[in-house]
Structures are given as C-alpha cells and as structure tokens.
C-alpha cells in the first residue's frame, strides 16, 4: 500500500492504494469517477483517456503511484459549472455519440488534439483528426460525426482562444 496524493479535477485527493493500482481504477473505484471507462486491456481503445498535467494519456496503462502530485482532469472535470466545454457541446450538436461508452475518451482526446495543434499553429484538417483518433475506437458512429464534432469544436475553441488574447 502506498499513499497517493494528486489533484483531480482541481481538488486535492489522497488515498492508500496497492502499488499495482492503475490510474483508471484509482479514478473509478477510489474516487468513484466512473465517466472514465475501460474498453480493452491492451491500450488500444482509448475509452480511458484522461489528461495528466494537461496532456492526454491512457489511464489504463499508468500506475496511480507514479502520478504523485500530478494534476489529473477527467471527463467530469472539463465543464465550467453548468457551462459545458465546447467539445461536449459539439458532440451533442453533431450527433458524435450513440451508446456513449467511448465518448469520454473521444472528448478528452479531441480537446488534447485541438490544444496541441493550436499551440503549434498547425491546421487541424479532417485528415489530421482521423490520424489523431488512431488510438480511440468507436463501434457505433462510423466516426463521421465524431470527426465533424471535433472539427466544429476546434473552430469554437480557436475563436475562444483569439477572444482571450
């Protein structure tokens, strides 16, 4: 057992957990943040994507004890109170989800890719979105509306970034 302390969705949390506890189990079982899902056991499907220190990672392949002091953001932590994140809104606007199981991972991956491309000044084309989604599997939507949703959210987020300047 090791005491693990980190910041999750802005709140400091601390739990004694077995050393082999994965981040996804820490989130789901210790903190009961069940929006982060497990869809495979080989780091392929991306249903478990969360942000650690602002970067997306697959929480099924990360030990909780290795993240002492980290800032973790999950799907439960991206809305600003009642105001949903533009990526969440875009998935609803463009019907980017059906069963909803892959959706948290898709949204977290989507936000990360938009942030990275904007930080690097690169254009997030359709081709780039599809390429960036390599690590996220959806069985329902055929990806059509996920690509559209991320594209729309990217426009929205870029507008917000400019307005903030």
């Amino acid at each position, binding site marked *: 057992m090791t005491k693990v302390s980190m910041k999750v969705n802005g709140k400091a949390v601390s739990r004694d957990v077995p050393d082999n506890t994965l981040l996804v189990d820490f989130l789901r079982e210790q903190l009961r943040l*069940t929006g982060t899902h497990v869809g495979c056991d080989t780091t*392929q499907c991306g249903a478990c994507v969360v942000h650690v220190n602002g970067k997306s990672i697959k929480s099924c392949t990360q030990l909780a004890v290795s993240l002492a002091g980290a800032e973790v953001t999950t799907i439960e932590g991206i809305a600003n109170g009642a105001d949903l994140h533009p990526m969440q809104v875009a998935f609803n606007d463009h019907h980017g989800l059906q069963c909803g*199981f892959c959706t948290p991972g898709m949204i977290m991956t989507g936000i990360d890719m938009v942030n990275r491309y904007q930080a690097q000044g690169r254009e997030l084309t359709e081709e780039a979105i599809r390429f960036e989604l*390599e690590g996220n599997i959806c069985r329902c939507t055929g*990806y059509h509306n996920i*690509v559209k949703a991320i594209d729309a959210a990217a426009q929205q987020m870029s507008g917000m970034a400019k307005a903030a300047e």
Partner: protein
Amino acid sequence: MSTGIGARVKRKEDKRFTTGQGRYTDDVRVDNQAYAVFVRSPHAHAKITGIDKSEAEAMDGVIAVLDGHQLTGDGIGNLICGWAVSSKDGSPMNMGAWSALATDTARYVGDAVAVVIADSRQEARDAAEAVVVDYEELPVVVTSDKALESGAPQIHDNAAGNLCFDWEIGDEAAADKGLAEAAHVTQMRIVNNRLSPNPMEPRSAVAIYDSAEEHYTLYTTSQNPHVARLVLSAFYNVAPEHKLRVIAPDVGGGFGAKIYIYPEEITCLWASMKTGRSVKWTADRSEAFMTDAHGRDHITNARMGFDQNGKITGFKVDTLANLGAYMSLFSSATPTYLYATLLSGQYDIANIYGNVKGVYTNTVPVDAYRGAGRPEASFLVERMMETAAREMGMDPAELRRRNFIGSFPHQTPVIMTYDAGDFAGNLDMAQKAADVAGFPARRAEAAQRGKLRGLGYSCYIEACGIAPSAAVGSLGAGVGLWESAEVRVNPVGTIEILTGSHSHGQGHETTFSQIVAERFGLPIENVSIVHGDTDKVQFGMGTYGSRSGAVGMSAIVKAMDKVEAKVRKIAAHVLEASEDDIVIENGAVKVAGTDKQMLWHEVGLAAYTAHNLPAGMEPGLKETAFYDPVNFTFPAGCYIAEVEVDPETGVTKVVQFTAADDFGTIINPMIVEGQVHGGAAQGIGQAMLEGVVYDQDGQLLTGSYMDYCMPRADDVPFYTIEHNKTVCPGNPLGIKGCGEAGAIGTPPAIINAITDAIGNNDLQMPATPLKVWTALQAAAKPMAAE
C-alpha cells in the same frame, strides 16, 4: 423549432454521456459486493478429469470457488436455443448440452469451468490462477467443412457427424430446371468471414440476492432484459420470474452480442445466492473476444442462371453455417430463416432453392451480429449479380434493373411477401448522388496517379421489425415478437412512456419522445422514456433486428390511441361537446369551430381528480398496448462504393461511399443517418479489416485489438446518405427500420468495387492488402501471357 416527426432533434440523452454521468453496469456498486473471475478452458476440446480448488480456497479474500457439478447439482438448467429448426427429413435439430459451468467436457477455448468469488477483483484473479484443472485433451475441429468430414472429432454425442440440422427452403427441382435452361450460369464459392461484434462496453453483471425475500436483482448489459428474465427463470431455474428483477441500465452498444443470456449472468446469480454476497463480474476485452457470440462464418457454394436477356432463371445455394461449440439463443434462426428467406434479394426470381447445414465446431458459439443472416444473404446475392454482369459483359446496374421486382406486394419463393419498395428509384438516387456518370473520368485521373479505381454496387434488402408472432411461431420461434408500451399521463400533464424496447445507443429517449410530443402538441421536455427494468416495464421483447421503430414505436402509437380516446371523452364531457368535434393541437384539447378548450394538463388533472368524469369512467390516464405487426418490414436500398487500390502494395482506400436507403417514414434523420454511418463502418470492417482467426488447435489468435483489426477513423470515409421513401403499409407510422442496413448493404459494395479495380472476381473477405495484392497478381498473369 419543430420536434415532431422528421425533425433533426438533438439527443436528450447526450448530456449524461458527454459529462461522464452515464451509468453502465460496471459503474454500479452495491453493498456487500464481491467479484467473480472465471476459470476457463485453455483447450478447445478436452475432458475435465479433476479440479483442485484447495490452494485457491485458502487464499486471502476468497469466499468460494464453485464448479459445474455444484451448479447442476443445485438444479441450474442448461443453456438453450430458443428457435427450433427442423431438418429437411423432418427431424428436430440436435441441440448439444451446454452447462453454464462445464462439468465433464470443455468444447471451446474460453468455456467456463469454475468461478472464483472473492472480496476484490485482484484477489479473485490471483485465486483463479491457483485453481488447478486437469484436462485430457481431445482432438479438435474448427471449420464447418472439416467438421462434416468423416472421422472428424465428435463434439456432442447427440449430433452425429457434428450436424445440428440439415435444413432446406424452396423448390430444388424448380431451381435445377431453371439452371438447366439458363443461357449463362454464374458459379461462386463465397466465404462470409467470422466476426466479433465488439460493443465497446464489455459484458458485465451485478447479481444481488436478498435472502429474506428470496429475491434476486441482476444488473446486466442486455439488449432485452425481459427476455433475459424469462429465460433465466423458465429454463435456467435461477429464480421464479416474480422473484427476479433484471435491470439493463445504460448499455454501451450491443450489435447482437448482448441479446443472449450467457453462462456468466447465470453463474453470478446462482453464486450470489450460494455465497450470500452480491457478485459482480465484468469481462475484460480478451474475455469478450473469447466468449461473446461471434457472427457470420458461412461457406457457400451457389449457382445463378440467366437467360439471353439477363433475366434470372434459377438460383441454387448450398451453405455451411458454423454454429460453434454450442447453440446460442437464436443461433438456429440466424443462418436459416433470417438468411435464406432473403435469397431473392430485390429480384423477381421464380426458382430458388437453399440448403443450410448447421455444424458444430470447437469454437465460441455463433449467433446474430448486426444484420444476422441478412448480410450473408445480401453479400451472396449481390456478389453473384455483379460477377454475372461482368461475365456476361453487361453493365451491373442494368442487369439489376432487368431483374428488379416492380410491383407490390410480391411473394418470393422463399416465404417472404415484400409489401412495398422502389428498387429502381433507390438505384437512380444512388447513381445520381454518387455521380456514376463521372466515374470513368475519376478512374482515368486515379490511373495517372498510379492507382486502380473501382466502383461497386449493392442493392440490398432485409427483413426487419422481426415479427409477427404467429408467423415466427410457425417457423419455430420460442417467443412472440410483439412489443408493449405504456403511456402514463401524469396529473400535471407530463408523460412517461414505458417501453419494452431497449436503447443501447439508438437514441430512443429522443426519437420516442418526438412521436409523443408531436401527437399531443407538447414540448419534448415534457416526455420521458422509461426502459430497461423489468420492475418498471411490464414486459417487452427488446431491441434487435431493427425492431424498435417498426414494432416498439407502433406499440406506443397504439397506447397513445387509447389515451387520446379517453382524453376526447373527458374533454367532450367537461366542455359539453360531441367527442367527434374534439381536436388536440398545440397542447390544448379544443372543440372545433369554437373557443372552448381545456389545456392538456387540465385534462390530466380532471382524469386524476375524477370530480367530473363521464358516468362509469375509471379515473386516471394511463394506457397500455401490445402491438403485434402483420408482417416483417423490408428496408431496401442501393449502396455505391468507390475504392482506390495501390497496385504496388494492395493497400485499398474507400474514397467515396454513397447510400440511398428506403426506410419508410423517418422520425429523426440525424439519428437514422448515424445508424447508417455506424453500420457502414462495420460493413467496411467486415469487407476489409475484420476476421476472427482460430488456429488448427482451436486457439483463438485474434484475442485483442492488437490482432483483431477494428475500423479506426482513418479507415473510413465521410458517407453520403440519401433517403428514398415508400411508406411501410404494415405499421401505423410507416416505418421500416434502419439499424442494420449499413452492415448489410456495405460489404458487397466494397468487394464489388475492389474486384472491379483489380479485374479479378475471386477475392474473399477481409480484403486485406495481402489478399488484394495476391488477387491482383493472379489477374495480371493471363494478361502478361497474351
């Protein structure tokens, strides 16, 4: 903005999913919860000669280690197939015994042999490692053709030669005669590749036993919780129906795999009683690959004959269907009544004969996967048509046009009566949207870039809205396939719809609300949908076979009819008018031609206060309907795919995809398009990427996403979707259903396009780069020799 029929209403259910508040079975945590981990056979066929549980039982946190002898000793029944199919000689199918935990023999890799119940998942896993099972290996057979060979390993004692059934449909003599008279006969051997459904949420169960009430609750990943309860109760003897509540909360995709009641749910329920603990089990992905029912796996030899003018004269089909090691719940119906009844396709064919042999092998059971039998039929018919056109030097679209059924109703020689359709119209629409006229120029342009461009058609038809009860009953179904609905108008006028349909991605909470809001002129927010809980909804048959629209929504309409009749009576009484003059619009119940009206909620309140109701009327405003359709529905359409093949590598890209579907009435086009997108991606997956592989020892080699190739975002294009509309005469809304079309119509369009590009018709799915490249080399050879 309109929220009625035909409006692109954004989904009501999305908020909980986009904010991480969906509640799936593995998210459920209950008091006193323990965890189950199964010990599974690593051998495809083996006698179980002993189980040593002592080490595992002594480990930390272990509550119990249970085996098949204990399970059957407690009277838990064998798993059953719910659809009886007879062989052509009249004998019943040979159903092999399947115990939830194997007692004497394991018949596929993954067959459950024992279960460990422990305080934590990790402890259960560790203890499962320590259970020592002694196996005596038996010879193994994994393919249907090898299983039928003489001397093949025998899998069930009561199924000689591994034959479960030898079933036929149509008139063999007539088909032979039609083929004998043909000017041209196209002959093909077609393998429909074995697939794993792969809903993204793995199967899961939480079983809770209340010893005081002798009552069970089961949270489970089910497409049809009521059927689960019925089967668990009536056949598996887990608990009487009134002592068993089944809840399917948010379910993360189904695609058929979550129709069936599996050994794990049975075992968890029994183990919860046995241990006095709530028991949770969640599959990991490799367990899902090993135990979720697979789909397809047909080997077919077929001959189709044509006269001088390209009219089909006869069609004869011989199919081997791999059933796996045991018969899953609907596994007999999928390769027979859901497959061979559609061998007529969209074509007027007088003479058809089909023979299907259902065969046991040492593989996971095979059952319905999105489309279930209909993709196999469509793929066969549409590959035959395209190939025949090429062989006869005809335009493949023209060959289809010459054979299209043009008038309805149309009785095929294989049971089905098509009620409505516009097959030529679908083809026109698809050709226009896909700009088929511009294809030669696109092909030439691709050639300049060194790419081989090909175009392929698929004119699919399917039978959906699986029903009517009497008809399916006469064909062997063990259940009726109607649907139920209850419409509850509250005293304040808001409405709850209780439905036996189950949504696991289809968006019922939105679509079903739309038809209610439109009917009574209410805001869509005032309607909520209740489903997936046997304690709340009285009964229902669940969601599969594209039946929620055609059957489930029809039941809601029937219940709304009854509500409306009562509302009219109440309003006529209160407003002192004739019932015939009452109209309902914009949330008000009015007397036509006057300014007299009651607001909708005032009628609701009047019904519940009951101060002033017509004489003899019962208080309240709640109606129930059971709807049993008169026929299947027949969605049909035309898909056109264009691909580009890199001749150096065989790498193939779908560059254009057009679907023109006729789904009848569409409630929410946004959701319907989403269904086609997803089905098309699964179709592209089947055609180009996916395939379950067992080695000759029955070891599953595609046991994870590292080896089983799921379609990813960069494997698929944007899809162009068009809708034709011939109203279905069989149900009140005119709906045909849309859930499976994409998976049914897509594979033949893709393979027809690739074979067009490479100039070789001999190509099996999945058309991986290696297969495409090899077929291309084979096609190039004779040309080089010229």
